[in-house]
């Protein structure tokens, strides 16, 4: 039974997406600078577009308005960041400029590189071999070997279990996906 003096747990709604909201002022400054650049680029691009009919139907009209309002929002974001930075100085609160954990970010970078290599390999190494096994038509393309290798590498990076388990799971999963998409739903796979 729950203890009678246990305080009830609080449920706080932070928005439809948990985690979105206030970042450190420095991160919000960086974000607003990036957004201003994007806004400026799109505004310039919109103005450079031809106007075949009247201004009301110009292809660059809504892109220009969107980019201009994005620029204003970026300025507002920078303003809130500055307000919070000033408040933290007044309160003499120590701020972490980035709430990032370096080892985790390095692991993320390694994972992103694996995905980059995976897609590049599927684009470069294209082959397809059709064969029949027990009367069942099958296809072997670059998708299968590349996927197996990439999955084994990623699993080895993020799981300390035996290699043979990673290899078995990768083979079973790749063959399963290949059979379901190619043979059952006739969806071609990349690398073929």
């Amino acid at each position, binding site marked *: 039974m729950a203890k009678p003096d246990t305080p009830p747990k609080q449920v706080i709604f932070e928005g439809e997406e948990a985690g979105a909201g206030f970042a450190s002022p420095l991160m919000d400054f960086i974000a607003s600078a990036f957004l201003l650049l994007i806004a400026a680029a799109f505004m310039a691009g919109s103005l450079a577009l031809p106007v075949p009919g009247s201004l009301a139907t110009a292809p660059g009209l*809504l892109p220009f308005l969107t980019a201009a309002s994005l620029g204003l929002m970026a300025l507002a974001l920078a303003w809130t960041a500055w307000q919070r930075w000033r408040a933290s100085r007044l309160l003499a609160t120590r701020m972490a400029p980035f709430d990032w954990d370096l080892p985790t970010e390095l692991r993320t970078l390694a*994972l992103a590189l694996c*995905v980059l290599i995976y897609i590049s390999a599927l684009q470069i190494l294209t082959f397809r071999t059709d064969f029949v096994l027990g009367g069942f038509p099958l296809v072997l393309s670059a998708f299968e070997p590349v996927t197996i290798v990439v999955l084994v590498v990623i699993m080895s990076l993020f799981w300390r279990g035996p290699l043979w388990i990673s290899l078995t799971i990768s083979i079973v999963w790749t063959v399963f996906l290949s059979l379901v998409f190619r043979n059952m739903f006739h969806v071609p796979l990349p690398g073929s």
Partner: protein
Amino acid sequence: MLDSILLALSPYLLLVTTAGVCLGIIWGALPGLSTTMAMGLLIGLSAGMGQNSAICFMLGVYTGSVFGGAISAVLINIPGTPDAVPTMIEGHQLAQRGEGGQALGMAIASSFIGGWVGIILLVAFIPLLLTFALNFRSWEMFLLALTGILVAGTMSTGEMPLKGWISGWLGMLVAFVGLDAIHATPRFTFGTFALFDGISYVPVLIGLFGLAEILRTLPSPSAPTIPSGVDRVVPPLRMIMKYFKSAVRSGVLGTVIGAIPGAGANVASFLSYDIGRRRASPEERAKWGKGSYEAIVCAETANNANIGGSMLPTLALGIPGNAAAAALLAALTLKNVVVGPTIETDHPGLIYFIYAALVVANMIMYVAALMLIRPCVRLFSLPRGILMPLILPVCIIGAYSVKLSIFDVWIMFAAGIFGWLMSRFKFPVAPMVLGVILAPLADENLRRSLFIFEDKSWAYVASQWIGTVLIIFIALVIIDGIRRLFSKPSDPSKAAL
């Protein structure tokens, strides 16, 4: 309608729906894998199916995954989906007292009731909304698209709607790439032929919700979760009847919230939980936060009723109710189904088939949920380092299968990296998806309406009363957002962040 139900009950479609529901439940139950991610990634699988099979499959996944979040919430105190947080608070307390099975049983029954409330209200109100939607012309459609993006931005970030709006605006800019719909002028293509066709929103959706989630969760260190045991799952009828009134109230609330573009299952679940606490008897209110069955009923009924609600704007106006509905819209578009006010004339009978598919999916969900709880408990013991990499090839196939183009896979990769960066800078990603989907609608309709209004007076524009109401609503949303921007954060610690 009877024909549609019989069609949805045909053996093949029944099998496809069951597969969708089971996949959805397992997906939703696994921590870190959201409903939208399930819907986004499985678009690829639905691409190889016929129109009816794709609808049954996607609705099955939607129904199953919304419930699935409750399983891990109750048994391992980690919400499978964000809307299962209230269920986690109450359900895990009950599980610790050895009542986990009954808590899950109540969650299943509530989800089932919620599903029905959502479907009944959808069937009741869609003819009205469709009739009303026929009054929407270019100006109103532009304003409605803008409303959808703004509201999605506001709802996604509780204290800082500005970041939600920025996310939506970025999505709009992405959608402007390609040939414009009126003059076929290439916009922001930089001479790249592959960009002439524009950026398809399916790879963007998969990147933002699939790859970005893998990049976010896989490298983060996490302790293995140990599932608690689960006893008898079927809840007694007496308990269901006891909370039936709360279930119906929460169901209606969940459906109404679902019908608001941008407001999804999370808003429905949290709001219904809060209203349920206020409306509960003093004796029941004392249990709130310590393991209350009524609280589970409120949260689970609302988030499942939200499915029917989100279908209302999606089908009647072509404006997705939430990000998961946006994924469903993408799957329908791949099958050349254009939803909106003219859906009944463009695709006669389709709307009845969608009702029937929802009914069948809800029935199957009840049975499948009872059968899948124990296998799901076993899945929780799988390390994240094994589970998450397996999703990667599904992302690749999903992005590739839309146009059989490796360029789309690169788009997915770019969207994934951008989505990860957005989450690190604490920007929501759902409004961006809505921006990508709604921007072409907004662009085309704004230019058409400005062309119509070119030689008209301001009084004429103001006389378009639906548009004027929408402008007032947009102004109120913006004013509320600006007010929140100038007010201090509710949590003092955030002031120094």
